[in-house]
């Protein structure tokens, strides 16, 4: 900053002198103000490049008297930039402001109030409040529309003054203005005010809602978005109202602007909670499908937003895109984030009827060249195996054929999913274990290796040379990554329990446990080693019962979101919340929580799962939201546990990092189920992109369910930890 910074400063000062001189020269002889225009242009260019021009304040302000719009505009631009910093000299400009506020030209009137609203200094605001009242009733719509936005600015600067001045009421009057753009801007201003934590409540009644809808046709696309979004503030009192409004806005689904379409869908989804007519709901659902599909033919960024939203919508209203799985087949030049989002939806839409097509498509993807994409495709095959029982045989066949490709990452991914398949369908596919064992040498990723070790340990009684395999695998025990070490320890113990008579096995177990307890640094692993050792020492039979206890079958329930949470997220359709599948108030400060409002018309089903709105405090700590790409190690657990529970919950004895590794094995009792559902898909941190896991929104909503869930969790925690204590 030393030499160069000084130079730059010096340079600037010189420039300012130069500009000042030029302006002074321009004052005397300036035909048609061309000179001033040129200088001002230079000054503005400097402002936008970040050079400080505030020293020229007095000189620039002098130009305000020039009756040329272009010059006025540039001076105002200057004022917007430096007005706040030059609070002591701003009084010089006030007369000019007032003059312009009453100019004959509406463009200048609007410009003046707009500029004033950007300078939040009491003197300016005082004068603005005087003027604004007239401008809200100006006969020119352009002035009225600008004035509406200025009210929001005024409110942001001084809420009290705005409320005392009755501006909110004046804005409400504008909601029924004859000009659609004015209406739209009034809506935007009111929404902005209402979204502030200290703002007024902005609710619509049926009459106003209908008026707003009538204005939709003539507004610009931005105005339509404001108006549609504001309809979420209307709580229907009867089913008929909701149905009527739903029908009236559903024509907007044919709008060319994708944001309008998505906002319309959001409002429709909201209104459906208040509808009762099954056939109408079905009809609207059917109508929503095609526009969503159409969004997929836009640019990749629009596709991405659409796909993330579709993923939410199909969970709540499966009929929307029931028969359209083919639309989500990936094109080879789709960007990776689109492909991954499509895969997730393909998995959701897979059912017994279309599973054949989906599976064929996924197999095709598994031969692609993008490694991340291939992994995710293989993983999706595994998830579909678990989801659609009828297709399990076909899935296993395709997984085996993938293993035969011998492409390292495909094989590894396949082995990871096969582990879960064994859990889901016990006793059906163990015949393929020898095939898996052939690929032992290809495994170089911790997760795949750990999965393979789990398989060997779990089925050690069926694998003849299990002890030899384990002997090989433990050869580099101390150099293995921690999750593999965990898996190896447990597998060794299982092997011992199966084959306790064999001497080499005894030696192996002894060797592994000795390493674990004496040479391993990780306290969790060491504790686990001690625990096993004692279990085995005290009573090997009981140890066998504990370690090889019956495991609950894996289900995909964890993939499903809670209805109430889903309803709430759907109110944020199209917004950041729906992209990250989190409630925005949990990760965006100042975002207002939204919740379904209760009314006589609310669906009984929706009411059952009603989640009351909560205004959360500042979120604890930085929050990392997993995108669809690969998740870096270490960020995963943070993302999946933004629990606001840390005060009420006994702090877990294991740090989260190693806890995941430790539980990967998932033997023992208590927390088993909880862990396994996730272990399959969500909590994978190595490997490919675990998606923003479906359990996420749930996690962030914990407090919303009241104490009930908290208590349950409190109960669950000790049980979860039991085997390790």
């Amino acid at each position, binding site marked *: 900053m030393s030499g160069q910074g000084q130079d730059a400063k010096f340079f600037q000062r010189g420039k300012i002198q130069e500009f000042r001189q030029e302006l002074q020269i321009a004052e005397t002889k300036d035909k048609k103000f061309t000179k001033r225009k040129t200088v001002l*242009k230079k000054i*503005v*260019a400097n*402002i*936008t490049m970040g050079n400080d021009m505030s020293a020229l304040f007095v000189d620039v302000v002098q130009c305000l008297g020039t009756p040329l*719009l272009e010059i006025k505009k540039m001076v105002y631009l200057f004022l*917007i*930039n430096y007005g706040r910093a030059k609070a002591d000299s701003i009084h010089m400009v006030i007369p000019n402001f007032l003059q312009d506020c009453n100019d004959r030209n*509406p*463009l*200048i009137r609007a410009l003046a109030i707009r500029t004033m609203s*950007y300078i939040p200094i009491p003197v300016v605001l005082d004068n603005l409040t005087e003027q604004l009242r007239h401008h809200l009733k100006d006969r*020119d719509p352009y002035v009225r529309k600008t004035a509406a*936005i200025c009210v929001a600015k005024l409110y942001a600067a001084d809420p009290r003054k705005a409320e005392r001045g009755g501006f909110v009421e004046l804005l409400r009057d504008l909601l029924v203005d004859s000009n*659609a*753009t004015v209406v739209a*801007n009034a809506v935007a201003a009111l929404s*902005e005010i209402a979204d502030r934590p200290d703002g007024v409540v902005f609710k619509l009644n049926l009459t106003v809602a209908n008026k707003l809808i009538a204005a939709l*046709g*003539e507004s*610009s*696309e*931005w*105005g*339509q*978005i404001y108006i549609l979004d504001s309809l979420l503030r209307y709580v229907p009192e009867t089913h008929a109202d909701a149905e009527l409004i739903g029908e009236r806005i559903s*024509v907007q689904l044919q709008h*060319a602007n994708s*944001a309008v379409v*998505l906002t319309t869908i959001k409002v429709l989804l909201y209104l459906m909670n208040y509808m009762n007519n099954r056939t109408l709901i079905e009809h609207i659902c059917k109508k929503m499908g*095609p526009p969503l599909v*159409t969004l997929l033919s836009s*640019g990749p*960024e*629009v596709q991405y*937003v659409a796909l993330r939203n579709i993923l939410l919508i199909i969970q709540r209203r499966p009929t929307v895109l029931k028969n359209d799985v083919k639309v989500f087949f990936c094109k*080879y030049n789709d*960007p*990776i*984030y689109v492909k991954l989002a499509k895969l997730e939806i393909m998995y959701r839409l897979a059912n017994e009827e279309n599973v054949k097509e989906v599976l*064929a498509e996924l197999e095709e993807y598994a*031969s*692609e*060249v993008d490694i991340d994409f291939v992994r995710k495709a293989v993983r999706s095959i595994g998830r579909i195996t678990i989801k659609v029982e009828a297709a399990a045989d076909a899935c296993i066949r395709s997984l085996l054929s993938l293993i035969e490709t011998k*492409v*390292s990452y495909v094989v590894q991914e396949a082995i990871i999913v096969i582990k879960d398949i064994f859990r889901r369908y016990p006793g059906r596919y163990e015949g393929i274990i020898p095939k898996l064992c052939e690929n032992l040498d290809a495994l*170089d990723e911790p997760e795949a290796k750990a999965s393979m070790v789990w398989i060997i340990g779990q089925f050690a009684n069926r694998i003849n040379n299990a002890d030899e395999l384990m002997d090989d695998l433990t050869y580099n025990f101390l150099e293995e990554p921690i999750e593999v070490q965990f898996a190896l320890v447990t597998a060794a113990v299982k092997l011992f329990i199966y084959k306790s008579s064999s001497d080499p096995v005894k030696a192996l177990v002894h060797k592994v446990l000795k390493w674990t307890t004496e040479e391993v640094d990780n306290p969790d692993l060491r504790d686990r080693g001690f625990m096993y050792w004692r279990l085995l020492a005290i009573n090997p039979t009981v140890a066998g019962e504990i370690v090889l206890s019956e495991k609950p079958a894996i289900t995909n329930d964890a993939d499903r979101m809670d209805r109430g949470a889903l309803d709430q997220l759907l109110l944020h359709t199209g*917004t*950041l919340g729906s*992209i990250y599948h989190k409630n*925005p*108030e949990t990760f*965006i400060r*100042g975002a207002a929580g939204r919740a379904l409002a209760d009314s006589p018309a609310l669906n009984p089903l929706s009411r059952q799962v009603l989640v009351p709105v909560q205004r959360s405090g500042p979120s604890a700590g*930085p*929050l*990392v*939201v997993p*995108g669809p*790409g690969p998740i870096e190690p270490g960020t995963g657990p943070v993302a999946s546990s933004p629990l606001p529970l840390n005060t009420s919950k006994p702090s877990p004895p294991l740090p989260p990092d190693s806890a995941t590794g430790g539980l990967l094995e998932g033997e023992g009792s208590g927390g088993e189920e909880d862990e396994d559902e996730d272990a399959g898909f969500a909590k994978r941190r190595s490997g490919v992109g675990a998606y923003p896991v479906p359990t996420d929104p749930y996690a962030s909503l914990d407090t919303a369910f009241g104490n009930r869930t908290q208590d349950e969790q409190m109960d669950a925690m000790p049980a979860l930890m039991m085997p390790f204590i």
Partner: protein
Amino acid sequence: MAIDGLIVLDSANARPIVQTSFRSFPPAYPLLHINAYSSAVAKAVRPEDVDPVLLVTLPDEPTACCHLQHRSLTFLCPISGDLDPLYAFTFIRTFLNILIEYFGEVTAPVLRDNFDIVHQLLEETLDAGGHPLTTAPNALRDIVLPPSLISKILSVTGVTGPSGPSTNNLSAFSSPIPWRKAGLRYNHNDIYFDIVETLDAVVNKNGTIITSSVLGKVDVNCKLSGTPDLLLTLTNSHTISEPSFHPCVRLNRFAQSKALSFVPPDGRFTLMEYRFDPSASKPGAAPALTAAAAAQLQVQVPFTLRASLSITDHGGAFELSFTPRAGALEDVAVELYLGSGATGATCTCRKWWQRVDVRARAAHAALVPRALRLRNPRCHPFRLRAGYGARRCGARSRAGMRTRAPRARRRYRSRCLQGALLSALKIDQLKLSGETYKPYKGVRGRALGRVEWRVEWKGG
């Protein structure tokens, strides 16, 4: 419901060219977003693989950064509230379209040369609070004078020309219709319709179509005087489904009579987009949605491609035979991605196939063709043999020890052009009311095919 601002970056050096002032934010705010974007790009394997909505974790408040790439430019749009990212994207697109309207080619040097105009445009389209203001190009033209030879000469000679934003010409704002200004005059009243249909299909290795869809788009160039109210009727309108319209089209009217009634904006705009649904052309077809999947199969891919590809450790060879189905195809291009280590392709091709190598974009592999692209300006049935060399390259496996031959994709991507529309959609009649003249109507239709053809892949 407002975006924070807009930053236009030069993608080459990630430096901002133009940006809004971000007045209500700390000075570092735009820089932090630029940094977040560039570090995300640096991390990604390919720049186009970066998530379009980046979450930026600022010390006090996380925000999101929407970004869009256009040639050598990147548009960043930070949003700090819970806003629809599509809103940001549509704004970027709109602004980009305005720039294209003004400058034609939009690149970093063009924007730098016309800095003052771009900045004025930005000021007019987005107010400091993040609300879009005037985005209709014809209204903007009144406020911001587009660059022209005359204005350039005038600025050089120092003479004031036709005073740009004339203070008394407020037609843009007095017009009751936001997308059309009042009082337009043309000597010839012309309106041109340009219908483009795009076939998007995936064909599997057996030659059966897996998915196919036809999307149509009606672009209009309108040069009509006054405030004409148009009524457009279409023949074969039953074959189109899922239409979406420019805001000027009266949606209720379309729902009733399938005719488009609208007051057109001035200049170029997209009137309508639609999907061609062949199942609807048969009377008494099953309800659209259930039959859609099956019916889409009926849209035929206008050519067949037979191809095989075999890959060895040191390269590969492929064979390609291309047969157009009936009809006149015009410009055919076939592209094959050869894998990231491919070194050079040789092919024996006749003169009507031009070879275009799509070179790798990464700097370190500047000379390595990653994809082979063949173009055939006319369209003849043709057989082609080719081979290419390959370097073994380190696989991106975690161990990083193994090497493997580059894997070519098992996909051919081909594009072709056809003179006739697939949907046989026609503009039947254009009625004008509200004005007295009779407009000239020009209609052109063409179809574009984008087909992904999967092939068998041998060796490895």
